[in-house]
């Protein structure tokens, strides 16, 4: 990009005085290169959040982790219990209560799971899959494949639990019990991935 020395100019934009003109070319190549590399890196790492997690909840760390899959999210913080970002119960009330069932959470989750089930069963993808019928025979599948197939079939009942690592296990048990009672078939725990130590 050329930079012209300031000074008095005529109507055509040229220097009017008879002095020697000063033109400096600013090399933009390095900057364009950097922009390109940065844009490529950011685009490669770009992903849309498939799951609505709360960022303020400190999660426990684990090494044997799997990629998060879309699911209903039950968030347990030190103040409240949320279902898909909607507060459903007060943490202290749940902690103090004698019985394990958290009724507001059960009702909301049951409804959410039923809606998801209807949505998935009436989906175009499922209709196509049934029409093609290209499923493998369960007898030919390995244990892991069978588990994956089962998880896919009952994906509507998948619930991810995001709980504060500091909360007591009894409250977690109450939440887990309620999730199971609401009809969830698979419970996952959200964790922060940790690098495995070489010595381990």
């Amino acid at each position, binding site marked *: 990009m050329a930079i012209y020395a300031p000074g008095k100019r005529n109507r055509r934009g040229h220097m009017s005085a008879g002095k020697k003109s000063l033109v400096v070319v600013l090399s933009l190549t390095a900057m*364009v290169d950097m922009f390109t590399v940065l844009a490529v890196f950011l685009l490669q790492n770009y992903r849309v959040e498939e799951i609505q997690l709360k960022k303020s909840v400190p999660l*426990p760390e684990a090494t044997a982790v799997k990629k998060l899959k879309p699911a209903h999210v039950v968030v347990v913080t030190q103040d409240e219990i949320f279902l898909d970002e909607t507060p459903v119960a007060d943490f202290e009330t749940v902690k103090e209560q004698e019985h394990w069932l958290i009724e507001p959470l059960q009702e909301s989750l049951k409804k959410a799971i039923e809606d998801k089930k209807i949505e998935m069963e009436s989906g175009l993808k499922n209709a196509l899959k049934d029409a093609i019928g290209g499923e493998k025979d369960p007898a030919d599948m390995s244990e892991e494949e069978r588990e994956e197939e089962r998880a896919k079939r009952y994906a509507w009942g998948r619930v991810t639990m995001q709980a504060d690592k500091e909360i007591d*296990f009894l409250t*977690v048990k109450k939440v887990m*019990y309620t999730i199971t009672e609401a009809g969830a078939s*698979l419970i*996952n725990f959200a964790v922060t991935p940790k690098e495995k130590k070489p010595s381990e």
Partner: protein
Amino acid sequence: MANIDDGGGNKRAASFDLNLVPFIDLMSVMITFLLITAVWTQVSMIKLGSSIYGKQNTDETPPPPPRADVPFRLDVKDTGYRVLIGKQKYNIDKVNGEYDKEELASKLADIKQAYPDKVDAVITVEEQLKYELLIQGMDLLLQSGFPAVSVATGGAE
């Protein structure tokens, strides 16, 4: 602006500037957008194995895993870990107030060696303990080759 020159010579010189301004504008806008919307916190999950012991909400009952006849349980207690395999019990006490994870990992590796087909395990945690300890215990079981982990609702005895 990038200048392109054919080197001159006798022919008529073809020298022109490539206008990079719109390109730089586009890049600036794109990089700003990507930096703002980037997700910096990595979150993953660990999953509970489909349990034959739990409540079944689906139509089919998962088949029992191999060697399910050998009971295998990990208790996380206030004083440390306790491993129950078959009729044997092993206590792994805390060292300097910390849970001895290395000792537990080696014990679990021994159990995996003794029962290579076994994939299921049950974990119990005392009610007053932190949820973090459940995840720690599950993580160690998963690392040791027991992917079908169930959480028992009764506390550690």
